[in-house]
């Protein structure tokens, strides 16, 4: 799973790339109107282009189209399917995974792709302890017995290994020696459908890679233009300056749906937003108090306010379409029962609860205001503290909070998100939850190789997590994207990956 990234507005500078001298560029006199180039309006500038280093979503919007991984999530249900690896086998004991690599794949510099590139890329992430090294926590060794084969040796069975190495382009395969020969912060040599042509403070330009192993893309290039203000991005789409955007003012989603000025689509994302209470701060260590609060929160009203209805209320982590969705919703808003539980817990009302939110994600500020109104009815006085994200993270790290609101993005496999967030002393268990039964289930799920059995284990764990209110899950926001009428071949995805490989302009 990806971590919450410091999303918009964080970006940096100028990356004028040495344009590799192909001499094929035709002078269009600027303005980006020439050729068959798709112009996409994105909300923020990529911070840099080293896939193994960056953690920023704006970077991955671009890198998705430039690099490949061994396996990729299927756009429909996000299960893993072949990409640079055409197949794989797992040993009886689950400790050895053997990947067969695709042949006739070339990097953008013309060099051949083989197993040495995979070993190099994975070793780089592991040895330099880069942002995604945790994904190799159970990997003891990466070897290449021959040019078309890569073997991963594990310390314990890891049923979600494919998700770990393929869920996003942070696990990209670089050509051997790339980090030493290139400045990967500004240059990119991948195997993907587009090459990174140039990038500056206004836009990033990609050019179609004609020798792409999946066939040449349907457009000559893509320009990612940074338009932070949603109203401006929508205007640019409507008057034809751009042909695609994911930066839509939420309050306009409804009026745009079904209209003919733009094509707008939505799908529930595998992101979830939640409220979490501090087990180290009485009375929030009391299960009844947490359950009372969970009973008093009307998730549908919160989703409506934060997203103008473009979010699906959910009492568990991930949405219905996902394989690991748990159909469990024990809390229907019931103020009477909530008050009883508070009384039963011996809590004096009004009870004051600090609720820490960050303006980095304005939806949490709105959600907090709605929740404050709802909790007031059972005598819980919510004091909303709006911080900038840096201070917010500081306080979260120090455990200095009663409760906070935040989200997790791109959740594909429960071994990642449940374990880190709800296991006793898990690295992201900031609330301080500890339930031996949950620990046992999470351990079992992490090594169970049968998918159906795994799902049952995680369903049980999810029920306990929800019942104990380790997280008070709120909703899954929709992915909302819009494009020019007539644009074809684009598929909206629940993991918010943006892939322009098969897009064709009207």
């Amino acid at each position, binding site marked *: 799973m990806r971590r*919450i990234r*410091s999303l918009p507005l964080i970006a*940096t*500078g100028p990356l004028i790339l040495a344009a590799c001298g192909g001499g094929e560029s035709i002078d269009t006199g600027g303005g980006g109107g020439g050729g068959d180039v798709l112009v996409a309006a994105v909300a923020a500038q990529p*911070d840099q282009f*080293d896939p193994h280093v960056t953690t920023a979503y704006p970077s991955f919007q671009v890198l998705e189209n430039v690099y490949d991984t061994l396996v990729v999530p299927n756009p429909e249900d996000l299960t893993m399917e072949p990409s640079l690896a055409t197949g794989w086998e797992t040993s009886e004991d689950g400790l050895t995974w053997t990947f067969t690599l695709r042949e006739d794949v070339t990097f953008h510099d013309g060099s051949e792709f083989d197993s040495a590139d995979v070993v190099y890329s994975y070793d780089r992430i592991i040895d330099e*302890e880069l942002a995604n090294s945790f994904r190799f926590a159970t990997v003891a060794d990466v070897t290449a017995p021959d040019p078309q084969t890569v073997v991963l040796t594990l310390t314990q069975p890891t049923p979600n290994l494919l998700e770990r190495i393929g869920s996003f382009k942070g696990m990209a395969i670089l050509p051997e020696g790339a980090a030493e020969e290139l400045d990967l912060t500004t240059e990119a040599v991948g195997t993907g459908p587009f090459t990174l042509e140039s990038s500056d403070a206004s836009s990033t330009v990609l050019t179609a890679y004609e020798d792409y192993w999946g066939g040449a893309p349907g457009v000559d290039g893509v320009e990612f233009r940074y*338009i*932070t203000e949603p109203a401006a991005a929508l205007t640019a789409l409507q008057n034809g300056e751009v042909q695609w955007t994911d930066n839509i003012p939420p309050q306009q989603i409804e009026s745009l749906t079904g209209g003919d000025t733009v094509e707008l689509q939505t799908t529930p994302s595998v992101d979830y937003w939640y409220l979490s209470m501090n087990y180290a701060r009485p009375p929030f260590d009391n299960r009844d108090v947490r359950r009372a609060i969970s009973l008093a929160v009307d998730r549908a009203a919160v989703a409506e306010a934060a997203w103008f209805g473009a979010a699906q209320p959910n009492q568990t982590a991930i949405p219905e379409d996902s394989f690991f969705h748990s159909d469990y919703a024990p809390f229907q808003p019931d103020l009477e029962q909530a008050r009883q539980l508070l009384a039963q817990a011996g809590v004096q009302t009004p009870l004051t609860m600090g609720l820490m939110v960050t303006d980095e994600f304005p939806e949490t500020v709105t959600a907090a205001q709605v929740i404050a109104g709802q909790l007031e009815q059972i005598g819980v006085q919510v004091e909303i503290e709006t911080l900038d*994200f840096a201070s917010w993270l500081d306080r979260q790290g120090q455990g200095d909070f009663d409760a906070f609101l935040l989200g997790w993005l791109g959740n594909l496999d429960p071994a990642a998100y449940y374990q880190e967030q709800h296991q006793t002393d898990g690295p992201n268990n900031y609330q301080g939850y500890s339930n031996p039964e949950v620990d046992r289930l999470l351990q079992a799920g992490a090594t169970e190789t049968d998918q159906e059995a795994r799902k049952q284990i995680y369903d049980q764990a999810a029920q306990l997590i929800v019942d104990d209110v380790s997280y008070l899950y709120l909703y899954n926001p929709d992915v909302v994207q819009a494009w020019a009428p007539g644009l074809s071949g684009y598929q909206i995805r629940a993991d918010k990956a943006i892939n322009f490989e098969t897009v064709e302009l009207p």
Partner: protein
Amino acid sequence: MVLAGVSVIVFSLVHLVPGDPVRLALGTRFDQDTYDALQARAGLDQPLVQQFLGWFGRAVTGDLGVSFRSGETVTSQIAERLPATITLAFAAILVALLIAVPLGTLSALRPRSAVDRVATVLSQFGISVPDFWMAIVLILVFAGTLGWLPSGGYVPLTEDPGAWLARLVLPAVVTGVVSGSVITRFVRSSVLEALGSDHVRTAQAKGLPGRQVLTWHVLRNALLPLVTVTGVQLAYLLSGVVVVEIVFSWPGLGQLALQAVQARDYPVLQGAILLFALVFLVINLVVDLLYTAIDPRIRR
């Protein structure tokens, strides 16, 4: 010397602000090994004094360090955004003066008249209207409904003068209206003051034509405060106008500084603030030099 003092203050302030850039780069997902590796790479594991001395030593030679986030040099990041910032700042000042000088003079010539009232209301409006609101309304009208201008972005003058101008108009107007409203009030009061001074009365008594009195005796004297306030406004604009830059996707220094604050990208933030300090120093110097050109009494 001033800059050396500024750099101490800048460095301390930037590091005093709560928030850890490494933690921020990692997001909410925490991993001690990765954290330590990142911190060491950024040099943040060293004592603060040592960090300052290292940074200061390099800054003196023009090396402002490397951005935590992008891995690029701070100087190249600033240099890339400088043309857009300078373009917008001067265009906005031009708009501001085109508004302020006629409007301020007219209302001073006829105090309490209808013209004066309208000018006062307009300048009050310009100061108090939120610039992001004005910006969005202008985009919706001129780029949306009318479709006359692009919704934003920046194209260098050298690349395509037409596209450059089309994208410059709206941000320059929004920024210029705000600055112009401030300057209008200064023009009005300084023209009023000059009108009431002895030498103007003398000139009028000598029977000089009204236009000549206005140009040579009133406006010339009213110019001094105008130069000062315009200088202050220009320095402010050259430090980047965050809101307008964001709404119009204008790749200026304001955006860069904001991004650096949010990411706690110390090197970029320090570099940007140092530059802003330098801009204020230079503009103050230029304003002082202009004084001597305008007012012979200062020369002596």
